[in-house]
């Protein structure tokens, strides 16, 4: 698989274990970006000339591909700059105007800051309650805790599918079902699952689902916001500009409908077209088999980690993301030592400070796998890690 990813030709010794932060890009995505920039560059949806028309067609084809990828219609797919912007559009454009001070938003202690702070701010600005479901990190999120916390004043639920820190896979279907039966809008943060999990929004029946292209082999700067028919026309624009208007006069402005209502200013045309090549790549993968391979690597790593003194794996990782601590050694110091052996890992809070506080941790070292990682990668990690621990003691 590594031969599909040019970065490993340039850096043959690289052991890339920071896939929860961003995945590497396969050849066809890089070629698509390069081809657009070299041979097809023009602004989409604007020009009355062939290049612009072609850019528009490819842009809209990417929207159609994304819709098929999620089993929905293109009218339900907006392109944003990433997961964070997608969530902010929902928090500020959908929720804020309907949230009252005696109501609440339900989320969890596990969330990435991008699925935490927008709701927290929204609640603070309105005076509403930001209701957080606790987790001890040992198991996936307890769905019944979430469901039992819902009441007649709950106006929104925002839950991640897979924890970017713990690698646990949350039971979102049960929570979505409970939300639907109570008519509470629910957003699923699929940043860590979009690449290798089948996300059928029709079957899931969530109201919103968001993720970033760059964590699913696509380019940086492209985000996806899926909105169900029942909510999509209730997302008001929060950014204003050129592309999203229907009519502008000196007295008032009217806007296009979703998803075009969110396209204020020029989009990342090359990136969105490049993302459609990532979808082709993803569609050609046997996702079940890739997930099994990653689970095998995860289990092997955890087994080997258990043999290292003073190393503690945080929680019960399932999905190729393993956070760990080593007694009296700072995660940054471990990451620096591993870097000297060309092993790329993440160290710190992983944008989950409330979770770290809850677990009384000052940070962790995190390894996260993807389809190109091998047992040899893990063996190099284990060797380097043991040398690092010995040196840093």
């Amino acid at each position, binding site marked *: 698989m590594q031969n599909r990813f040019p970065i490993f030709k340039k850096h043959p010794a690289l052991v890339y274990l920071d896939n929860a932060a961003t995945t590497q890009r396969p050849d066809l995505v890089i070629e698509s970006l390069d081809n657009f920039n070299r041979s097809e560059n023009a602004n989409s949806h604007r020009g009355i000339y062939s290049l612009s028309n072609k850019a528009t067609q490819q842009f809209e084809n990417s929207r159609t591909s994304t819709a098929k990828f999620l089993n929905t219609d293109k009218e339900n797919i907006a392109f944003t700059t990433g997961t964070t912007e997608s969530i902010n559009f929902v928090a500020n454009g959908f929720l804020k105007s309907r949230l009252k001070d005696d109501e609440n938003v339900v989320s969890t202690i596990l969330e990435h800051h991008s699925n935490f702070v927008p709701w927290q701010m929204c609640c603070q600005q309105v005076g509403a309650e930001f209701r957080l479901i606790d987790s001890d990190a040992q198991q996936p999120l307890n769905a019944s805790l979430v469901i039992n916390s819902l009441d007649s004043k709950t106006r929104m639920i925002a839950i991640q599918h897979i924890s970017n820190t713990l690698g646990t896979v949350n039971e979102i279907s049960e929570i979505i079902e409970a939300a639907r039966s109570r008519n509470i809008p629910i957003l699923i943060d699929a940043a860590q699952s979009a690449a290798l999990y089948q996300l059928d929004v029709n079957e899931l029946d969530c109201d919103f689902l968001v993720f970033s292209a760059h964590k699913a082999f696509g380019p940086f700067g492209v985000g996806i916001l899926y909105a169900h028919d029942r909510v999509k026309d209730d997302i008001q624009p929060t950014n204003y500009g050129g592309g999203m208007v229907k009519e502008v006069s000196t007295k008032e402005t009217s806007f296009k409908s979703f998803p075009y209502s969110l396209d204020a200013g020029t989009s990342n045309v090359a990136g969105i077209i490049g993302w459609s090549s990532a979808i082709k790549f993803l569609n050609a993968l046997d996702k079940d088999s890739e997930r099994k391979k990653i689970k095998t690597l995860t289990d092997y790593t955890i087994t080997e980690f258990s043999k290292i003194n003073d190393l503690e794996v945080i929680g019960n990782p399932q999905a190729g993301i393993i956070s760990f601590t080593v007694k009296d050694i700072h*995660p940054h110091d471990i990451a620096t030592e591993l870097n000297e052996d060309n092993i790329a890992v993440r160290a710190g809070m992983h944008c989950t400070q409330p979770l*770290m506080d809850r677990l009384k941790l000052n*940070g962790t070292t995190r390894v996260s796998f993807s389809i190109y990682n091998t047992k040899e990668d893990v063996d190099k990690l284990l060797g380097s890690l043991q040398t690092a621990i010995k040196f*840093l003691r």
Partner: protein
Amino acid sequence: MNKNKFTELYHNRIVPIGKNPVNFMKAESAGHNISAINPLCGDKFQLALNFQNNKALDCSFYGFGCILSKASTSILLKEIEGKSVDQIHSLCKNFLDGLKNPTKHEQSNSDIDLLLSLIPLDGRIDCIKLSWENLYEYLSTTIVH
């Protein structure tokens, strides 16, 4: 940073300082308590400064941090001992300027030069500047006007 430089500067010089930092202890009481926190990596130091006749003495720090941030804070505390508030303020400013623009920094002190030589260390500049930046901000806002 190449392997030889990494070994020479980081492994051989910084790591020993970081493992045994100067005045790393919890202060019972201090004239000035300064928090140095990096929420991204979890580093949390409490710097305790005392002044007598406008000279810093018995300065210490305590908390959680990586080897590099500990070493950098240790070097900072050693440097400020006996200096006036204004001198410390200038020292921090010059150091932080040096981190931003190392070519303009006048080489004057081996430990400070050592820290500046670690700028190429991947992703660790925040570890180097954490305590310097927080002390500079504290002095700028509370003492030096």
